[in-house]
């Protein structure tokens, strides 16, 4: 049973701890820099410059959000163990699962905070260059926020039982595989081999379908985005993250923290 009155202090403390991390600011600085530099890159094309500015802006938000989620997220639990502060925390009437969920929510809030900063830079550059902004952009950035729900859950899951280096490698690996999962599924279906098709279907079900959260192209080109393209990925992200956190909780319960 997760009690929010126990989780919330951990989460807020995690935010306070994370925003003191210099890596966070370095990544945020680069993200905002790339969004600004997009104006210069777009000037190399004599047409469709506004589209290029927004493509680069959304891509850099996606890339740097991933960077922040992975490189800041994977060290949070390890840091508590290394500083031995985890013993003090867990000596309170607080379960390990609550601690883990608190850490997760704290990191998620931090990443969303950074996402909001990058969004402000993106909107400012779009307005300054006259690039059109629409509801599609809100949908694209909102779904990116939901993709981060899954990525942060992955980072928390791996950091529950392994070192920061391995956790970051595993998270990045699953992120890459998550963007390829649809192709893997299609490959299996086209192969004509039943066992491979079955295996690829299982892989598709197991890996996160991160392409479901990518509507950047539709947003930039003003293409219609169906309601189901928004609601289903949101539900999917929540379900996937909850499943990962439950699994992480099981593993973390049995982990020897000495």
């Amino acid at each position, binding site marked *: 049973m997760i009690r929010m009155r126990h989780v919330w202090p951990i989460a807020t403390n995690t935010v306070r701890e994370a925003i003191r991390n210099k890596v966070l600011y370095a990544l945020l600085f680069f993200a905002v820099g790339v969004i600004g530099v997009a104006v210069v890159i777009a000037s190399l094309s004599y047409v469709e410059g506004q589209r290029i500015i927004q*493509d680069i802006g959304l891509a850099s938000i996606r890339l740097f959000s991933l960077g922040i989620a992975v490189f800041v997220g994977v060290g949070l639990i390890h840091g508590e163990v290394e500083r031995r502060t985890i013993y003090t925390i867990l000596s309170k009437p607080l379960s390990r699962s609550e601690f883990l969920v608190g850490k997760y929510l704290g990191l998620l809030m931090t990443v969303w905070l950074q996402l909001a900063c990058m969004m402000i830079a993106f909107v400012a550059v779009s307005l300054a260059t006259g690039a059109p902004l629409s509801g599609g952009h809100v949908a694209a950035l909102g779904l990116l926020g939901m993709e981060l729900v899954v990525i942060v859950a992955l980072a928390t899951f791996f950091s529950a039982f392994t070192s920061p280096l391995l956790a970051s490698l595993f998270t990045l690996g699953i992120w890459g595989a998550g963007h*390829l999962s649809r192709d893997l599924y299609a490959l299996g279906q086209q192969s004509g081999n039943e066992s491979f098709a079955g295996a690829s279907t299982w892989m598709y079900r197991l890996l996160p379908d991160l392409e479901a959260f990518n509507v950047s192209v539709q947003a930039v080109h003003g293409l219609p985005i169906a309601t189901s393209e928004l609601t289903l990925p949101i539900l999917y992200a929540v379900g996937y993250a909850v499943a990962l956190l439950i699994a992480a909780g099981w593993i973390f319960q049995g982990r020897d923290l000495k």
Partner: protein
Amino acid sequence: MRNDLKPNQPLSEAQRPDDFRSRKAIRRAWRRRGLAGLAFCCALALVGVVQAQIPPLTRADRGEAFVPDPSIIERITLGFDAVLSDYYWLVAIQAVGGSAAVDANAGGHVGQLIDVVTTLNPWVGHPYRFAAVWLTESEENVRTANRLLERGINHHPEEWRNRFYLGFNLFYYLMEYESAAEQIQAASGLPGAPAYLPRLVARLRSETAEIDVAEAFLIELVQGTDDPVLQEGYRAGLDEIEIERKARFLDEARKIYRDRRGQDIATVESLREGPNPVLVGLPSPEPDSLPVALSRQSRWLLDDEQDEIVSSFYGSRYRLHFDAVSRAKANGWAAARQEGTLHAEERGSL
């Protein structure tokens, strides 16, 4: 300590005063810094010299071998399709550069790049027409451009310009008039399409008014591009059409002359000479847009070989294509197609 010292005896290292030792340390530190600086300069010089030997080839210069297969790259973009598409679009612009025309090989390279661009992000707009403008140096290039335009039509069914460019390619380079008419007809019903497109369709279907069709296409192409080199080429075509119209006017006058006099003209000047002349004056044999300072003092001539009136400004009559190079190209492709068909028929009969 002081009592142990004897006069005129050199001091040991430990006995020397601190300031002496620190001066030595400072000298040693400066020496180390100097050596490090020298090594830094040497390394910089090495980098400079070596880099000057490496040719600064960009991806655009490296040609087709460095363009990825679109079906592979679209699987490994990891959600960054749009930004990678933009990257290859900038490479395509770089590949064309400021050149007036791209040769057939470079055309293949540009075609591959635009294929990647439009595979990764098929909702782009201009790259389809960019391909149509630049892929004209071989029949294969034109057909590649047409395939890309068809992809553009699939993703932008409301965009009349993609159909217009496809129609132009079919008419101008491939001489497939019926297919061209179909595309222009489809374009004419789309939002923003110019009002003259239905007339263009009628002319294409009649196959009798090639210059009217070419003129209409060229006027639209001049208006549709900001590239001064391309505009100049299209305007040159319009100038040639203007002279062709004048020559056709003189052809009519020549017929009247024959009917009246029962004989052909000796020179083009005969049309305005003698009693009851057919014409009061001859039209200018040079384009109206030509500045007086650039006039070549051209004249109307009677080409004995072709038995037709020509302006000395061009030396020949207009045959659909707006310049000799593209005319030769289209004729060559048509001949190759014809030859290919004959060979196929021969193979079939065997």
